[in-house]
């Protein structure tokens, strides 16, 4: 039996026996369990000895002892909190030597002659509750002083918000952002997944959607006010060409042209001509132009390099037999 040579960590209520080893592991489970229980009992007794000899205080649930700090070091789960950098006001106050003053929860309100709270709903000396403002010599004639006061207040609030954002950005840079605040344009909402973040629509998407919305109006979006930068709609105007109702006697020239066009198209499909003269002529001309251009380019800037034999992948004009 090893004496009290166990390593005891009272802070963690742990005992460790470094001197035990099995010569032979007992074959049956029950024997092994009993052996371990015996050893365990000894060690637990050792812990209890030191535990119960600590100075204890009586509380209603029983004796309470003050445990020492644990000796085995275990890793933290989160990093140590970083100290917050001082805000702009704090720096200014430190420089000037301004100390914080304790404010009362209730302040005397002159107007209603009662005690009202300092901040919040129905506060004392509220800027908005002043019924009468004396006109000063510096005031202009048409200016509403109440509106001016509320505008000034809005400005102050905006400035304060801007300063708060700056302070938070400074804190975020130092890694000391308060835990309940998030700072980002595209931060995920505090609870939620990636699906909840709405996707930004692209420029083309917006244009097409605007166009669709415009055409769904009664006048087809013709008289809608366009925003600055919005392009005029494409394909404006008629999509169908209607021939004039009256145009001289019998079949008019326009109608004749239309029917001729249709006939030609129909006939050309069923024609057995191998060569389309017009197309052949244009192709020949185009080829000639290209060759002329190439010669022009090649001659003035003759390089010693070998030029690769460019193979054109264009389909030839041979028409397949129907």
């Amino acid at each position, binding site marked *: 039996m090893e004496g009290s040579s166990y390593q005891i960590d009272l802070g963690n209520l742990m005992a460790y*026996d470094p001197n035990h080893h099995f010569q032979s592991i007992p074959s049956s489970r029950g024997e092994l369990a009993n052996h371990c*229980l015996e050893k365990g009992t000894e060690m637990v007794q050792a812990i*209890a000895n030191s535990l119960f000899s600590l100075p204890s205080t009586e509380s209603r649930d029983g004796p*309470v002892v003050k*445990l020492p700090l644990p000796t085995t070091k275990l890793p933290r*789960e989160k990093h140590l909190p970083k100290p917050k950098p001082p805000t702009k006001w704090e720096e200014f106050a430190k420089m000037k030597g301004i100390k914080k003053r304790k404010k009362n929860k209730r302040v005397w309100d002159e107007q209603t002659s009662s005690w009202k709270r300092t901040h919040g709903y129905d506060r004392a000396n509220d800027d908005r509750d002043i019924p009468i403002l004396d006109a000063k010599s510096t005031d202009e004639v048409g200016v509403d002083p109440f509106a001016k006061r509320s505008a000034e207040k809005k400005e102050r609030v905006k400035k304060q918000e801007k300063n708060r954002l700056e302070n938070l950005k400074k804190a975020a840079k130092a890694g000391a952002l308060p835990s*309940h605040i998030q700072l980002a344009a595209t931060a995920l909402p505090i609870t939620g997944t990636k699906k909840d973040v709405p996707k930004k629509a692209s420029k083309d998407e917006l244009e097409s959607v605007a166009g669709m919305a415009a055409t769904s109006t009664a006048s087809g979006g013709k008289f809608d006010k366009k925003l600055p930068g919005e392009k005029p709609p494409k394909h404006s105007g008629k999509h169908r060409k209607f021939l004039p109702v009256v145009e001289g006697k019998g079949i008019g020239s326009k109608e004749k042209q239309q029917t001729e066009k249709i006939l030609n198209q129909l006939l050309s499909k069923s024609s057995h001509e191998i060569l389309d003269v017009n197309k052949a002529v244009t192709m020949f001309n185009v080829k000639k132009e290209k060759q002329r251009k190439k010669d022009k380019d090649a001659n003035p800037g003759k390089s010693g390099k070998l030029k690769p034999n460019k193979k054109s992948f264009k389909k030839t004009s041979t028409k397949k037999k129907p």
Partner: protein
Amino acid sequence: MQIRAPKTKRAKRELDKRAPKLVENVKKTLILHGTKTSAVLNSVLTELYHLKRDNAVKFSKKNENIKPFETGGETSLEFFSHKTDCSLFAFGSHSKKRPNNLVLGRTYDHHIYDLVEVGVENFKSIESFEYDKKLAPKIGSKPLFAFIGEEFESVDELKHLKEVLLDFFRGEVVENLNLTGVDRVFVCTALSSKTILLMHCALRLKKSGTSIPRMELVEVGPSMNLVVRRHRLPSESLLKEAMKTPDHAKKIKNVTSDVIKGKTGRIYIPDQKVGDMPLSNNIKGLKRERREAKQNKESKKRKTESE
């Protein structure tokens, strides 16, 4: 840039609970499993959850893309750890190569800190033990630990496993302990260089002659053999960072407080080498033109030297 702050005080309190603090909260455990589990492993996970009822979260879905030991397979775990604010996790899976596999892991700042993979053998569940129900340990009581075996010190894997088990079952770190509330003990015996036997027992305090009661162990809880398969220790830098303790107030040097003089300190002035000091060129005795000429010459000399 926008400030996103919680709109209710309750949400703010919840977020503040999850913030990093000097003295930390209890470590919560996340219990989940992979695509395939065995009956044994299922009962192991449920009993682990029962042991740690107050501060554990149990997921019931199968997670096929969690592979703790591979580089890509940890992202899901880290995400869950972040969402549930759990820094300990127990991941169970079963395969032919690794039957009844249990990965116990810890996170630091919601990134994987270290892992121990153990195989569970000879598992006996809580129901198979018969004992007087009055002795059953209460949920949330602080356990005692007994580690038996020299292998816990000599073998790397078992050393790591000991630390992980201590972290898992320790519970809250308290300063004041009610002595009537100690009613459970975890006994871990090293059977070989790779196996340990973990037993969970209830404590019975018996009257003895002195004020220190006699301890009696009654096996109640799950008992299992854990075979260490793989383990991953934390990297040096991560270990150093995680083990940092809050700064103790630095000793300010060179400040003594005297009753008569008050707060005193010593100022040390280096020796003035009067012979080597260069004379200034702004000699007031000279007439102005000569003085300026001397100054200009000096500055011109310096300019040519620097070029």
